[in-house]
């Protein structure tokens, strides 16, 4: 029996099993209730709810776990309202729910618990019936201990069946997250103080940073320059908390790291699994973001920022800039940056300024000549564009192939050149991202293959080799020594297996 094998393994695969009860509840209600009344349980031992064979008792833990997941998948497919349950599952995974469950464990005497347990007479297992931990416990206890548990189970059973009586199983599941959500809204403080800053950091550094810089100017007009860096970081943190507990603003700012925040960090590390990923990374980045902030601060006068803040920045800017000499100056590279740089960092900026000036001058000169404009990428590197003759030839070929006359007007040619410039810019961006992600400074063939795969140019039916053969002349083909067919094949196999298992 699948559930019999659970107890020893249950702890390692807790998450999977916590997601399971949704599916297993209905199964139990169908198959197990008779089993509890009569000793008919053994009859079911060989087969699971879906009727397939169960892992033999000698199976390894992994094998049993695999069997269990397969079972649960089947059950999920066979059960109605699957989509609704899926959505519920997602809701459950949110870090908020981990906090909730923790709250239930830590403080048993709160009102919510009493209300939830009030529906059931069960004393010790009186926690919320639908909470993940409790749900698991019920399933475990029902299965593990055969006859003795019947006494305990009877009180638990009505709890599950109460919602069933009302409408259906699903609705009991539906109700619970609603209640938790409501509960959260009451407890706005914890929720927002934890979630908002992290998310903002990881997702939208720009807006948040600018907010942080504004804070900095508000609070630290009189502070030392030395502390400005640290403060800049924390001020990015504080706005949300400051909004929440307005009295503590000054406290938190002075301490630079408020005890509350640290505590919450620890708690979260102890608790969530998935959520840790989302949260810990930004926490790690905070230190790096100190350097990210510096250029931002120096940029900010550029943007429409509150007028009061500007003079303060001017004071700060030199120090900050010396600490982090960035590419950002080069990135700014265009005309507006030039106006700012002299007042920011005289020495470093001068060189760049001269460079840029020369580049601009060149560009202007070339433009005056009316020939190919020299384009500069965002990294300040000049690059040519493809020779129009090549592009035109290709375009004509393709046009003929797609049924038009092979004639392309000069205007259209200009548009095509523009498009291809954009394409290469995008290509460079993407390839850079891939290479950096792989920890390389060099763009590899594998990066391009990954890119083409993501562009859906390469799929199991279209190998890169076939594409190359179709489009490239033989000399270039020889340059490409390609191992690639291995990769898509493996993928296909994996997918095929997965499909077989599911259906």
């Amino acid at each position, binding site marked *: 029996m699948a559930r019999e094998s659970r107890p020893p393994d249950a702890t390692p695969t807790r998450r999977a099993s916590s997601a399971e009860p949704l599916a297993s509840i209905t199964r139990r209600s169908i198959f197990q209730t008779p089993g509890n009344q009569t000793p008919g349980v053994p009859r079911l031992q060989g087969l699971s709810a879906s009727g397939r064979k169960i892992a033999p008792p000698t199976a390894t833990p992994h094998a049993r776990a695999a069997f269990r997941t397969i079972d649960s998948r089947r059950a999920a497919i066979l059960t109605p309202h699957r989509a609704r349950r899926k959505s519920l599952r997602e809701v459950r995974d949110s870090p908020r729910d981990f906090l909730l469950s923790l709250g239930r464990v830590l403080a048993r005497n709160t009102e919510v618990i009493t209300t939830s347990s009030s529906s059931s007479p069960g004393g010790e297992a009186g926690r919320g019936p639908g909470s993940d931990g409790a749900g698991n416990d019920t399933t475990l206890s029902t299965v593990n201990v055969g006859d003795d548990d019947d006494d305990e189970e009877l009180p638990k059973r009505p709890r599950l069946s109460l919602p069933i009586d009302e409408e259906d199983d699903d609705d009991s599941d539906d109700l619970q997250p609603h209640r938790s959500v409501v509960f959260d809204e009451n407890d706005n403080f914890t929720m927002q103080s934890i979630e908002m800053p992290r998310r903002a950091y990881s997702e939208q550094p720009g807006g948040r940073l600018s907010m942080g810089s504004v804070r900095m100017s508000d609070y630290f007009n009189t502070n030392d320059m030395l502390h400005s860096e640290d403060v800049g970081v924390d001020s990015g943190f504080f706005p949300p908390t400051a909004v929440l507990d307005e009295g503590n603003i000054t406290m938190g700012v002075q301490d630079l790291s408020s005890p509350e925040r640290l505590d919450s960090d620890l708690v979260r590390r102890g608790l969530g699994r998935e959520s840790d990923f989302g949260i810990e990374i930004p926490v790690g980045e905070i230190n790096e973001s100190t350097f990210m902030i510096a250029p931002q601060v120096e940029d900010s006068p550029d943007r429409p920022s509150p007028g009061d803040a500007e003079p303060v920045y001017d004071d700060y800017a030199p120090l900050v800039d010396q600490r982090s000499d960035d590419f950002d100056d080069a990135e700014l590279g265009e005309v507006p940056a030039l106006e700012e740089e002299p007042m920011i960092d005289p020495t470093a900026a001068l060189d760049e300024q001269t460079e840029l000036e020369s580049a601009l001058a060149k560009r202007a000169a070339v433009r005056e000549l009316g020939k190919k404009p020299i384009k500069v*990428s965002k*990294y300040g*590197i*000049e*690059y*040519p*564009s*493809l020779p129009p003759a*090549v592009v035109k*030839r*290709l*375009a004509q070929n*393709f*046009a003929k192939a*797609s*049924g*038009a*006359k092979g*004639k*392309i*007007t000069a*205007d*259209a040619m200009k*548009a*095509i050149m*523009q*498009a*291809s410039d954009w*394409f*290469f*810019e*995008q*290509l*460079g*961006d993407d*390839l*850079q991202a*891939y*290479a950096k992600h792989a920890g390389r400074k*060099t*763009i*590899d*063939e594998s*990066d*391009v*293959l*990954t*890119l*083409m795969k993501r*562009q859906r*140019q390469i799929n199991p039916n279209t190998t*890169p080799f076939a*594409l*190359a053969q179709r*489009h*490239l*002349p033989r*000399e*270039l083909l020889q*340059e490409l020594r390609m191992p690639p067919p291995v990769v898509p094949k493996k993928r296909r196999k994996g997918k095929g297996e997965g499909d077989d298992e599911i259906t």
Partner: protein
Amino acid sequence: MPGQKLYPRATVKKIVKAHSNCNVSKNADVMMFLDYMLFLQNLIKEATIEAKQGGERGITARSVRKVTADSLAKFRG
């Protein structure tokens, strides 16, 4: 076309290198250009369709501009 080289390899390398601020390995530019050809093919095809729908004959700048965004989005990695 035969006897004539398909594209200037060094140029493609330079372009990508400038945009990515990364080095480009020895033969990666071939695949890049292959990708570019696919992009161009897609662009021209769409532009042709667009032009036909708009009642123009042949590919015009308007039709190309109209489909550029879509094609670029399609080739976003």
